[in-house]
């Protein structure tokens, strides 16, 4: 075979993988820019869309821009609270939907799908319409953001936990009952540990949805400012470089959590295989 033909064969065999990796690179270009800009020193320049010179100042003084760290704190607080509530309520609902046959189950499944299929602007504006009509007892702020976040996270939690539950072999619970575990022991020793990875995955998803949401939050936040709202507001004037520090940190933490889990699994498997 001539070298040319061999090269051609190699290209043919790897073209799809190559194109796929190219798409992945495209997905990471903006993140690379975020990381890069977290080391940018814009000086007195108004043009925050150009890399001027390298500095560590943004990393050493992340809270320098007024209000930014407060916004990050608010986002973290709402994110954690909404995640806990949505995960608990959603997990309960997933159990109800998968484990029990009742009237209106398919209707309930449809209603759960709807929030995922509605544009955020419509959900956000309709919630605002509700809050406005109840403006005598509701003031926009922390709790309205919290309510909205639990609402849109709920469907994602239910769908994720449901998938995990549906994949669970119900012989396992029967086997536990057969081995003298009563209903409560069966749940806590068998069902719950086996569904837990699904619940954790759902919680991670809920947190990232909540932390990142702008459209719905912006409509229902009143006087409060979450991190995405801070970024949006700053974008009108000129973004402080420190937001890139927060963006980079979030990305790194998430990667560490996800890759750490994966690595842990692999090490365990290797240790057991030997």
């Amino acid at each position, binding site marked *: 075979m001539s070298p040319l033909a061999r090269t051609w064969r190699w290209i043919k065999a790897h073209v799809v993988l190559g194109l796929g990796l190219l798409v992945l690179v495209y997905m990471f270009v*903006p993140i690379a820019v975020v990381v890069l800009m977290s080391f940018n020193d814009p000086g007195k320049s108004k043009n925050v869309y150009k890399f001027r010179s390298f500095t560590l100042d943004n990393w050493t003084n992340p809270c320098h821009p007024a209000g930014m760290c407060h916004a990050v704190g608010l986002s973290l607080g709402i994110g954690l609270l909404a995640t806990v509530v949505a995960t608990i*309520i959603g997990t309960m609902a997933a159990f109800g939907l998968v484990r029990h046959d009742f009237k209106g189950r398919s209707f309930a499944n449809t209603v759960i799908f709807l929030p995922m299929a509605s544009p955020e602007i*419509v959900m956000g504006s309709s919630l605002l319409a509700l809050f406005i009509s109840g403006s005598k007892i509701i003031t926009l702020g922390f709790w309205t953001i919290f309510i909205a976040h639990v609402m849109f996270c709920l469907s994602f939690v239910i769908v994720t936990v449901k998938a995990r539950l549906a994949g669970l072999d119900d012989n396992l619970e029967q086997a536990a009952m057969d081995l003298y575990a009563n209903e409560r022991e069966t749940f806590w020793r068998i069902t719950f540990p086996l569904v837990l990875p699904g619940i954790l995955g759902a919680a991670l998803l809920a947190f990232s949805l909540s932390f*990142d949401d702008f459209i719905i939050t912006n409509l229902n936040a009143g006087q409060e400012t979450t991190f995405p709202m801070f970024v949006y507001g700053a974008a009108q004037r000129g973004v402080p470089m420190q937001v890139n520090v927060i963006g980079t940190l979030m*990305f790194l933490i998430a990667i560490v959590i996800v890759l750490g889990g994966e690595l842990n699994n692999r090490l365990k498997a290797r240790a057991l295989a030997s």
Partner: protein
Amino acid sequence: MPRQGKGRYTAYWLLAPGAIWLGLFFVIPFYSLVSASLFDPNGSVLTGYDVTYHFANFGNAIKNYYPELLRSLWYAGLATLVCLVIGYVLAYAIAFKAGRWRNLLLVLVIAPFFTSFLLRTLSWKLILSDHGFVVDTLQKVHILGSDGRLLNTWFAVVAGIVYNFLPFMVLPLYASLEKIDGRLIEAAGDLYANPFKAFFKVTWPLSLPGVVAGTLLTFIPAAGDFINAQLLGGPGQRMVGNTIQSLFTSTQDYAAAGALSVILMALIVGLVMVYIRRAGTEELV
């Protein structure tokens, strides 16, 4: 296996909190939105609002904002198509070509989600900015005129939408491609000498559930999005989301905003129903 009998009441107890939450904060608000769309347009925050079944709100909304509505559907549709093409390549590569790197690549698809959506969009603003590397290069090779620009054009907005919603396309596509037995594709390669023919006769039809789910999950949020238009586009690229947002927050014309939201929702539901019927599948996820 679903249990019957006395478990029935347990099911209602388990579902109650979620059902109440979604009922109070999703279903009822939607009802409020519909009633807001029927407000007397002369109301204001100060004087209060009356539901006067003012159906003219809809007519007015369409008359005033039809360019934004059409532009939203056009941008979202175009972005969905581009997402489908490049998302399919990526999902296919991960499902069939990645070998033991499969899980890692999947993590990488989700990873961009973990930096703020707004920050990533602002990055594009920087990448596509007027004296940036991309524009300069394109000007040098005369794809763009010497005063040509990317920012504040339809191209930037659609590119931003494509970028932001790509994972919503890749994940369902991957889920359905992954289920296909690799031997089937090899068999197709034997049967049809032409690899393109093999692809369109075997792989593509088997991946259709993923295609349908992916296009819906991309198109629906894209049609309601306004961040990309706001940050990457100019006044000529306003989408319906921008209009609803400003009607609610700046103008506080709740009647018009409500009517426009209802129209957007109706358009999306209508298009989705036609699409699902034509794609011949009822399976959404």
